[in-house]
């Protein structure tokens, strides 16, 4: 039986997993693009991003371009945690193969 405690609970939630996946594909994403891609409400997205930020997985940058813009990026810790989470998922799938 697989030890579920190995799965990172911060990432192991649909919304947060989506955010971490997208952040892993580019140096940074702005709020509107994340919202459009994940089809999450503003409130949900803010809550998940806050959780990931508090866990040290996501860095937040606020800038004043033509209008105020907030962008999000994976931290080193976040990238490592995401890679670790992927490795655990792969182990689970492999272990379950006959």
């Amino acid at each position: 039986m697989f030890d579920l405690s190995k799965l990172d609970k911060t990432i192991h939630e649909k919304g947060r997993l989506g955010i971490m996946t997208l952040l892993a594909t580019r140096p940074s994403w702005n709020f509107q693009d994340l919202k459009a891609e994940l089809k999450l409400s503003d409130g949900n997205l803010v809550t998940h991003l806050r959780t990931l930020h508090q866990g040290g997985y996501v860095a937040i940058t606020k800038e004043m371009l033509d209008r105020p813009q907030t962008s999000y990026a994976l931290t080193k810790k976040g990238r490592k945690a995401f890679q670790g989470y992927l490795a655990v998922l792969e182990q689970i799938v492999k272990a379950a193969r006959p």
Partner: protein
Amino acid sequence: MPIKEEAEENLRVIRSLMERATIYRAVSAEAALVGGLLAIAGSVFLGFNLDLEEPHRQFDSPFTIIWGVVLILAALCNLSFLKRAAAHRREALFSSGMKLALLAMAPSLLCGVFFTVLAVCNQAVVLLPPIWMLCYAVSLLATSHFAPRSLIRLGWCFLISGFVSIMAFRVMQLSADALAVVLMGATFGGFHLIYAVCAWPRRNPAETGDAP
């Protein structure tokens, strides 16, 4: 949900999100609009300024120069729009997507350059439209692993048109020069305008299924 199914489902979600996020549009909709209008303008200019029924007219030089200018302007526009889009995504212009697209498109575009030089040297410029269509089609289709659907459809339209236009030279009653001018306007002009309309950025790109 059992842990194995849950793990598989999560891996599927990750894969599909990553694939969507790494889609690269090598021809922006804005550049297609400008390029399409330039191509139509080029065709109209050639149509009005060359007496296509006159047998001893100068055709090769004006045709090559006009389409050379259209190509350079359209390429510069595309580069400028891609640069803007890359800045929006906070990526360098020569991102991994751009490099992948250039590598995929380079062989067929080089073929296009080779055949263009060959046709100009042999005074067979009139054969260039189908060759350009086919080379452009193959270059677009070479990006199909990471291109949005609309760009792949554009590639197929050019490929089919390239084949059909070769037949058209045998069947149509128009002179070969007139047909070359019409084909350029209809395909490089018309197809790019249609593509621009279909691929024009929406407010919510995820809703079009054709993002980003």
